[in-house]
């Protein structure tokens, strides 16, 4: 590394390197257990002592009982280990008793075990929880937690001592109604983080649509919950940070309010046109998706249709749930992968620069997805070959489906999908061959990705509806080399949200964007993971910071977590 490189590598790097090498240094229980022969993932939920169970009414008579919950992966206590927050939900019957379904914050003990500290930390009872996203909102070096809900949302400020303060009211970000997805970003580059919140159906618990009543509450001749079609949708929220810990809702003023009340779910910040400004994608259920292009003046323009991401290639409005973003083909542009309802298909929108093209069938990702209702999704390079793969978790919304004529749809409980990136623009669905565990039929919702034990292989956490979650440890034996970049941004944006990391190794050139809010109403770890294949070092690691400044490190060895600090503002101005 050059002198310049050293200057911007965090002095605590040694700590992170130790964490990265944890597979060899710590007595990790996961490593002791026998992996299933040939299995990519091993379910270590029980070994990790995770006993959380998401709650919902068994019959799911109302749509509000089918949509939770999310999961957030972040280091809440700053010990360098990734912790897990599972969002729990209530039911129509328990709606007035929030204590019956506590959410859980599992602290990573570093030895393969976790312990639920939600009650002590003050984040156990967000009400009827839905999803979560994370950011260091106040720039104090500790990541804060935002939880979306049916009812008021919650902003939990991390005190940095292992506890959180509910600052929702003071911050003015409670919202209301039925919120689902969320994500923070400094969209206007004013130095503080703003917040987008998607909302779903307008619903009154005192006047719920009657189960199975009417044609729109039937599926294949069987009575099911009503909605979302036939129910009114809710506009979305955009909370602009005023500074001083207070936000103002400005969705309408800046053009992201969704006055039509489409059914918003997954949220993703991305730089869709490569102009260095963050744009916003919103996955809408049973309606056209939104792509809000940042106009650089504090407002957005909705461009879903012209950009080609509103509907499928057929012009079909799909039941979109989750969204993943990646430069999966090393084009340098961020493409979108969207999960959808059964008998539709998961869509891969390839970023062509000025617009997107639906490559779902040409990429061979679509056919395998047709029977399933897809939710959480992530690009993850599970084998570290340098090409981001895709994972999707599935599960229907109607338990009654199993009595019905199924047609092309899978039953209520469904397997997961794992697509291996072939590096030529196409994918193979390999779950059965590579990860038999993923073939278990479950009803999954949130999914998030992190390397929990620092062994350089990405692990997965899944929150199921009305059931126990899964922590899946990546056991892939033939994994390639890897590199992880953890960014420390400026004072007001410690997470460096919106920073673009580019790693070059031989012929591979990969980019990742740091983002808050991912997958289906969930949060991945913000560290940026890169598979390097056979390369033992990255030729370069470049960061384009949110303010446009750039840093390039050279000859970065593989197998390490590199912590990169943002340059001081004056230096940034010189290097822009």
């Amino acid at each position: 590394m050059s002198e310049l490189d050293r200057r911007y590598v965090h002095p605590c790097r040694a700590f992170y390197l130790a964490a990265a090498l944890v597979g060899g240094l710590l007595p990790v229980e996961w490593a002791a257990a026998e992996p299933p022969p040939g299995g990519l993932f091993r379910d270590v939920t029980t070994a990790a002592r995770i006993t959380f169970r998401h709650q919902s009414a068994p019959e799911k008579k109302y749509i509000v009982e089918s949509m939770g919950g999310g999961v957030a992966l972040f280091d809440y206590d700053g010990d360098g280990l990734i912790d897990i927050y599972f969002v729990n939900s209530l039911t129509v019957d328990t709606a007035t008793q929030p204590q019956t379904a506590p959410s859980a914050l599992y602290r990573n003990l570093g030895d393969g075990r976790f312990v639920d500290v939600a009650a002590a930390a003050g984040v156990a009872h967000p009400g009827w929880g839905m999803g979560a996203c994370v950011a260091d909102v106040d720039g104090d070096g500790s990541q804060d937690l935002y939880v979306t809900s049916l009812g008021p949302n919650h902003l939990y400020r991390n005190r940095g001592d292992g506890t959180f303060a509910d600052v929702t009211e003071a911050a003015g970000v409670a919202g209301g109604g039925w919120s689902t997805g969320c994500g923070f970003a400094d969209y206007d580059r004013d130095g503080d983080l703003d917040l987008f919140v998607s909302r779903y159906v307008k619903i009154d618990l005192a006047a719920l649509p009657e189960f199975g009543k009417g044609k729109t509450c039937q599926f294949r001749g069987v009575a099911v919950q009503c909605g979302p079609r036939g129910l009114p949708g809710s506009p979305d929220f955009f909370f602009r940070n005023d500074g001083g810990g207070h936000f103002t809702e400005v969705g309408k003023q800046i053009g992201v309010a969704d006055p039509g009340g489409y059914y918003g779910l997954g949220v993703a910040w991305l730089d869709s046109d490569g102009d260095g400004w963050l744009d916003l994608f919103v996955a809408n259920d049973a309606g056209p998706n939104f792509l809000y292009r940042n106009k650089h003046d504090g407002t957005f323009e909705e461009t879903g249709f012209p950009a080609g991401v509103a509907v499928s290639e057929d012009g079909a409005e799909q039941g979109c749930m989750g969204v993943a973003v990646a430069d999966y083909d090393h084009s340098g542009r961020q493409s979108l992968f969207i999960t959808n309802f059964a008998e539709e298909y998961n869509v891969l929108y390839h970023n062509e620069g000025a617009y997107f093209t639906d490559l779902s069938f040409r990429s061979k990702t679509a056919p395998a997805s047709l029977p399933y209702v897809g939710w959480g999704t992530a690009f993850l390079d599970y084998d570290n070959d340098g090409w981001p793969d895709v994972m999707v978790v599935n599960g229907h919304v109607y338990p009654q489906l199993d009595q019905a004529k199924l047609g092309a749809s899978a039953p209520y409980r469904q397997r997961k999908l794992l697509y291996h990136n072939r590096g030529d623009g196409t994918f193979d669905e390999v779950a059965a061959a590579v990860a038999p565990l993923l073939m278990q039929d479950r009803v999954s919702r949130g999914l998030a990705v992190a390397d929990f034990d620092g062994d350089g292989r990405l692990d997965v956490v899944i929150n199921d509806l009305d059931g126990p979650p899964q922590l899946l440890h990546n056991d892939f034996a033939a994994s390639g080399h890897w590199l992880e970049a953890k960014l420390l941004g400026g004072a007001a944006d410690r997470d460096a949200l919106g920073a673009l990391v580019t790693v070059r190794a031989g012929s591979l050139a990969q980019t990742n964007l740091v983002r808050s809010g991912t997958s289906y109403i969930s949060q991945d770890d913000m560290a940026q993971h890169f598979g390097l294949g056979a390369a033992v070092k990255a030729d370069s690691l470049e960061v384009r910071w949110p303010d446009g400044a750039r840093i390039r490190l050279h000859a970065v060895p593989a197998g390490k977590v590199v912590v990169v600090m943002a340059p001081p503002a004056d230096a940034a101005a010189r290097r822009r």
Partner: protein
Amino acid sequence: MKPRRRSLAGALLLLALAAVSRPAAAQAPAAGAGPADRELQLAAESGSVRALLQLATQRARAGDVRGAAAALRRALAIAPNSEEVLAAYAHTSLAMRDYGQAALALGPLLRMHPTVAEYPYLLGVAWMQLGDMTSAVTALQRAGELEPHRALTLAALGLAWNEEKRFDLAKGALDEALLLSPGDPDVLAALAEAEAGLGDATAAEQHADQALARAPKNANALLVIGLLRMRQQRYAEARQSLEGAVAVIPNSSRMQFQLSQACERLGDLPCAEQHRELYRKALREIEERLKALHLRSIGSEEAPP
């Protein structure tokens, strides 16, 4: 669960399929219409199903399909389980493009006469037109079991699989349909669509070209060429082909959407907006039709929008 957004790309073929199966009553050319309400009244008052069927036949032969349907509704009221009446009503409804009524008539026919291949075939066609591809496939597979290797059934099944995005299954059915009905432009176009979905652009283009050589205004083939040109980023050619397609089927949401995208890529924003609006209109029409369907029962008089 939201309704499927049926592409109308195969509408011409489906209508052709339905027409082939239509009874003589509905096929006869118009020859001096002039149905009189009094005539209908008399037939109804006679209480004779036979008289009403004869009246329906006369009216259909005179080109008055609505008049025929009115007579058959009277007959249905008298003999709701008569195969002859139900079949005539189903055929007439298909001819009127009132697919909801056709499906309602064909359901009991299927239950009462489970070995007649024609009924599940027609029901499959009706479901396709209504946008319920899952039900369409089930019915068409049943028709195929009862009468294997029938080109019409295989072609309809191929179209339904295409709509379901099960292109591998569609190609299998359509390959066989093409063997049984060589050179059929509708089958060729549907096969091209399946091949395009499977990523075989060469075969798709070849079959679409063959379809257009035989039927230059085949909308489905024009759509396939348009899609292929979009993928090749040859937007001007895509636009030309898609304009040809929407000229044939202006209420196809899929075709209008693709044309709007081609215009967008060419920078012709007024064209893009115009066709996006037509796309939205087509979607709304499908919604309205489905809503209307939910509100109707067999023999009700309101035609779908």
